[in-house]
């Protein structure tokens, strides 16, 4: 009833291929955007900003970067966290060498460094496929984290070996650092994430996206119809690493405030992969759904025992958390291997013909 499409006629191919072929999709998105831009910031508490809103946005962006590589171009990568680290360290060097630089510009520029590193580690993908490639990306993961630790220039020869985000101003407002306001940071993150999402949606709908999908579905066949595999795979690596790098910079500058090398260790990589897979590979919406689930779930689980007044120690809660997250991953994979985005697509289809399915 709410999703009735009757009366919406398409008279041209362009109209059929438009971003919102169904009017209700546009309305739904407008409502969500209104929530994200106006209602949530007005009502959210400091706790909600720091534990839910900002991390969900940043993780969605990272997962989107990974999804371009794994979901659209079919190259499985386990080195996501290391590329986030490249973005974060590049951003740190940029703002400490050139303190006058606009922080948002610095964050956007740091993505280029991780894109470069990403292309370098993407070159083996031209010869290696499947799980062999996945393990090969682990080489990037372990090597880069080691480099963050040993190359003292990266963290300005700090005694602690960690990077601390300094106070950064943009147009007279502090946007990063210890004194920055959560709401300002939220808006910066939201703006960048919205921009990137728009970019990704259009990229994946265009020529480049179709080349990626062809490469993913069967690379030999793609080559036969005239797709340059090298170009297709390396652009996927470059764009995916760019987005991941930007999200890594946001991760440290807009959320964590400080970072040490082992923050970018392999569990973070897996976390992002979970988000992308549970959300749905080869979908943009899925990244958001996955991030909401993976970030939100532990927060809810942590508060549950308190609300019910159960006498469970925080260590036990932590262990139960890991267990429950693990079982939920298996559960979601069993009920819908194509992810939450597919679940939403099914619901939407059902809604279109509801209440008369025949």
């Amino acid at each position: 009833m709410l999703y009735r499409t009757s009366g919406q006629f398409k008279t041209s191919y362009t109209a059929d291929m438009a971003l919102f072929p169904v009017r209700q999709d546009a309305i739904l998105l407008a409502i969500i955007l209104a929530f994200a831009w106006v209602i949530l910031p007005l009502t959210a508490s400091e706790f909600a900003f720091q534990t839910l809103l900002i991390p969900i946005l940043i993780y969605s962006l990272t997962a989107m970067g990974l999804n371009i590589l794994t979901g659209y171009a079919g190259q499985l990568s386990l080195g996501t966290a290391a590329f986030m680290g490249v973005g974060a360290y590049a951003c740190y060097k940029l703002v400490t060498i050139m303190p006058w630089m606009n922080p948002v510009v610095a964050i956007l520029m740091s993505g280029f460094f991780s894109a470069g590193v990403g292309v370098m580690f993407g070159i083996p993908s031209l010869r290696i496929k499947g799980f062999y490639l996945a393990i090969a990306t682990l080489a990037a993961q372990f090597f880069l984290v080691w480099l963050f630790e040993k190359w003292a220039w990266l963290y300005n020869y700090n005694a602690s070996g960690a990077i601390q985000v300094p106070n950064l101003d943009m147009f007279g407002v502090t946007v990063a650092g210890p004194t920055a306001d959560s709401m300002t940071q939220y808006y910066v993150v939201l703006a960048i994430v919205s921009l990137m999402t728009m970019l990704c949606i259009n990229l994946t709908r265009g020529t480049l996206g179709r080349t990626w999908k062809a490469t993913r579905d069967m690379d030999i066949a793609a080559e036969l119809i005239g797709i340059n595999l090298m170009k297709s795979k390396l652009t996927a690596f470059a764009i995916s690493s760019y987005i991941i790098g930007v999200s890594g910079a946001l991760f440290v500058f807009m959320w964590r405030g400080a970072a040490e090398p082992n923050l970018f260790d392999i569990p973070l990589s897996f976390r992002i992969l979970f988000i992308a897979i549970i959300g749905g590979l080869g979908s943009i919406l899925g990244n958001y759904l996955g991030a909401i689930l993976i970030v939100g779930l532990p927060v809810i689980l942590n508060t549950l025992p308190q609300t019910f007044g159960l006498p469970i120690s925080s260590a036990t809660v932590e262990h139960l958390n890991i267990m429950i997250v693990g079982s939920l991953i298996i559960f979601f994979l069993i009920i819908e291997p194509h992810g939450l985005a597919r679940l939403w697509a099914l619901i939407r289809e059902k809604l279109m013909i509801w209440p008369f399915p025949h």
Partner: protein
Amino acid sequence: MELLNNILVKPFVDMVEAPDFLMQVLWEGLVSGILYALIALGFVLIFRSSRIFNFAQGIMVVFAALALVGFHQLGVPAWISVILSLGVMFVLAVSIERVVLRPLVGQPDIILFMATIGITLFLIGFGELIFGGENKVMITEELGIPTGEFIFEPFGGFLLLEQKDVTAVVVAAVLVVALLLFLNKTRMGRAIRALGDDHQAALSVGISLQTIWVLVWFIAGIIALVTGIAWGARAGVSFALEVIAYKALPVLMLGGLESITGAIIGGLMIGLLEKLFEIYWGQPLLGGNTETWFAFVLALFVLLFRPQGLFGERIIERV
């Protein structure tokens, strides 16, 4: 010139000048190589028979070792706790097959891979809940493993072999031989290999997929227990052990995902080379701790020339 000398000449001069130290380094590398090979064997067995890239092998090692120590702490005699932990691994194998694998039959590889990561997380949480997160001491002496040392003096130098390491090497060798005999000479073993060669053909001659999967996961569990005992005797039992699972991955790349020989030779190669690199190049030139990434980078270079690993099945693609 100074740098070239440090990279190309000095390490070899060091090796020749102190042959006893070199032998010590090689021995250390060999022992860790054997353990990497054992973990890789668990991976290969499961991959061959079900195309599942079993990420949970590392946590199975930890879990088996923790169960063993846990039973002993309850007052069970050492050898009976070994049997009990084997029982635990069997229950684990059955429940993984029932709960996780059976509903996911026929899904794409990456989904099954993710499911094994899910199993890993579950086992981490479950293990910490039951056994606690602190480091435990492996019950080396109670199991009758000698803890003394063999001391040799080759070339007028000094070489120290710990007896528990020697035991680990011997046990690993026996296990590998037993496994090869089992796979090649018994009915069950042949069924496992048949399933690895062609799923549908194996099913059509009446091989039960479910039985074989439980069997394979149980064998992986046995291997995990042996690895857990051997590694635990060296470094104690804790969840940090899980990271050695990552070390088995370059071994798999180097040896090929399907090859048992490859897993063994790859494991030994990586164990030896990474120790040599760390001692002679990593520590003096790169600030040490190169063991975290050296194996991966080495495997990556090998793969650039042989995309299926040294012993893997040739990848044939049809459109």
